[in-house]
């Protein structure tokens, strides 16, 4: 899908959302315009494989919705949970052996690995899109790669935002959280001077090292261009790496070794006052049994990633999709299940249950109570809106998946930041490594 298309779509759907939003209640207005029904097959039973919850509220609300579906339709649904990193290989095997769960909730570019094995859900996606204010562009990039056919239904994303201690940011001389990269670097320096440094993972952390994508994109660098040509070795990347080097110099020592849990631990122990993370740190602090940690929750706040020289948000988050496999014996029941789960009555309850951990893929849910009930949740509501797909700006598939899993960008940033290689060397190495993946 070309940039032009995406932008046009963005404008169009923003208009729709604005017009609808001006009405009395958003959901009621658009619901009248749309209806769709799928007739589940007789005796249908469904098996769903999803990633394990990150927060308890997610699975509780999800299972409540599943029960509602079974009560309403009589269709038995079995839900299996697996760690999100294990779902990916299982989904690939299911796709290619033609046997397994009817529906898989997986991550990132999975649907692009075996598009021909997935049930076309264009009717459902169009219906949901029209009813709920339109899909964000990232959803289309992931699930509608040819701009026509939908390979799956977007579920949302586990947004990672900047998590910080308000009092420490203030002490460093910032009344509001900086919105651009220049201000952000000044903040990092201020925090370090005050002895309350920031820290972001630079080890092989599958989730929390995604900030390195933001770093490169915010300065105009990218791994590949629209035609999947590797272009990471560029002046823009160079600027990003130099910026990253300055960030690292102001981090707490040890971030090169950090895996996904390290920043959570360090933050909750007050060793760092700023990091990138899902809402889980705040969620854990708020629900902690330790009074000191609970107190900290009042001082925790969140902010979106600052905008770099490119002038627009360039965030990178873990994206969730829902895929129905062609081999399912009950395609109509499967579609009906996804429709049911994505309708406001269920989806909104799920968003609220997940406590802000999951960001919605459909614009109408910007109005969801989860984003207003606690202003600290609000930044996470824009995760899908501000997100670029992994493998930006190229096409998604085995190459983007492989390059991501091999930590090419994260390693490059870590090498340059730590000074183990010059930015130029790090870039050239990343270029070579990425070319291998994009060669096929």
């Amino acid at each position: 899908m070309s940039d032009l298309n995406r932008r046009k779509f963005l404008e169009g759907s923003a208009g729709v959302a604005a017009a609808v939003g001006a009405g009395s209640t958003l959901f009621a207005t658009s619901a009248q315009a749309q209806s769709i029904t799928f007739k589940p097959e007789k005796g249908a039973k469904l098996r769903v494989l999803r990633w394990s919850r990150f927060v308890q509220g997610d699975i509780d609300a999800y299972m409540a919705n599943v029960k509602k579906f079974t009560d309403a339709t009589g269709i038995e649904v079995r839900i299996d949970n697996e760690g999100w990193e294990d779902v990916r290989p299982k989904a690939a095997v299911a796709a290619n052996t033609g046997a397994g769960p009817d529906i898989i909730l997986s991550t990132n570019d999975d649907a692009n690995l075996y598009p021909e094995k997935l049930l076309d859900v264009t009717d459902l996606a169009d219906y949901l899109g029209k009813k709920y204010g339109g899909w964000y562009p990232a959803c289309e990039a992931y699930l509608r790669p040819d701009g026509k056919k939908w390979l799956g239904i977007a579920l949302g994303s586990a947004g990672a935002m900047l998590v910080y201690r308000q009092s420490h940011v203030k002490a460093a001389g910032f009344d509001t959280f900086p919105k651009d990269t220049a201000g952000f670097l000044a903040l990092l320096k201020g925090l370090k001077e005050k002895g309350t440094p920031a820290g972001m993972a630079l080890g092989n952390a599958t989730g929390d090292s995604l900030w390195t994508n933001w770093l490169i994109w915010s300065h105009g660098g990218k791994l590949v261009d629209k035609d999947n040509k590797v272009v990471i070795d560029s002046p823009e990347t160079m600027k990003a790496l130099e910026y990253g080097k300055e960030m690292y110099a102001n981090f707490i020592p040890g971030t090169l070794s950090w895996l996904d849990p390290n920043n959570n631990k360090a933050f909750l122990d007050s060793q760092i006052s700023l990091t990138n993370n899902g809402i889980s740190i705040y969620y854990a602090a708020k629900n902690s049994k330790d009074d000191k940690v609970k107190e900290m929750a009042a001082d925790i706040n969140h902010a979106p990633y600052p905008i770099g020289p490119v002038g627009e948000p360039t965030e990178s988050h873990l994206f969730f999709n829902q895929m129905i496999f062609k081999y399912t014996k009950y395609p109509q029941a499967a579609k009906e299940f996804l429709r049911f789960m994505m309708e406001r009555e269920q989806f909104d309850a799920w968003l609220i249950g997940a406590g802000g951990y999951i960001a919605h893929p459909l614009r109408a849910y910007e109005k969801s109570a989860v984003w207003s009930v606690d202003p600290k949740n609000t930044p996470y509501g824009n995760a899908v809106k501000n997100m670029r797909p992994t493998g930006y700006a190229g096409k998604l598939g085995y190459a983007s998946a492989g390059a991501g899993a091999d930590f090419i960008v994260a390693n490059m940033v870590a090498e340059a930041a730590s000074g183990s290689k010059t930015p130029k060397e790090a870039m050239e190495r990343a270029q070579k490594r990425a070319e291998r993946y994009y060669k096929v």
Partner: protein
Amino acid sequence: MAAVLGPTVQRKRSILERFQNSPNALGWAFMLPATVLLLLFLTYPLGLGTWLGFTDAKIGRSGEWIGLENFSFLVTDSVTQLALFNTIFYTVVASIVKFGLGLWLALLLNKNLPFQSFFRAVVLLPWIVPTALSAIAFWWIFDAQFSIISWVLLKLGLIDRYIDFLGDPWNARVSTIIANVWRGIPFVAISLLAGLQTISPSYYEASAIDGATPWQQFRHITLPLLTPIIAVVMTFSVLFTFTDFQLIYVLTRGGPLNATHLMATLAFQRAISGGALAEGAAIATLMVPFLLAAIMFSYFGLQRRAWQQGGDK
């Protein structure tokens, strides 16, 4: 009876009888279940793994034969080269340290100590604890922010900032080796202890009468008689270390800057996380020559001593 049942049955029985009395046929028959198991669960996966390394298979997508392409890429791939170096460094250093400390421990435990059985049991503990669990413990011990080692040294005033155990490439290599050694020593120590106990005390008595020093006893009695056990133990130890996965995966996932990526962890990262099954299989296959070399070395270098064959030294 034979007359009642007729000639056919008689012939049948005689075939059965012949079968039962034939050592060859029986031998094969008894070996069959084991052969099937070995072929099915050992040879087939190994063959499949090797074959995959010569294809372009992705997870769930069977590949086409592409010959040596994976290998020719891997030998030029800087991360694979680094992983190979890491693996060899990790194996050599960890194995030598494990051997030295393990032998020392075995010699100590072989003496008549009070609470002998208790100590022997305690020594086995690191081996009994599941690797993933002990790795998590080490992960905390080596944590950049919460390390107890750093904390103690800081309180003692010996350092002024926390040691970056897993964040600096060489620190990380040494730290992972220490964790591996801790875990691997019991195997070496207990096996060597078993070997030590098979050495007849009369050798020591005889040598003592001849005026041999403890060092001479060790050098000329213990060591030569222990060599076959050492060969076996160290072969296994090298194999375990060379193919280590869990420890690295928990501690560093191969980081920082891929400084602790071993062949096994890299193979997993490429094959399962990255979906490039064939490339991961090729990395795993690349380990085979090194493993074979290690086995050959211990087999020819240590095990087949002339005295073992009954000849003179």
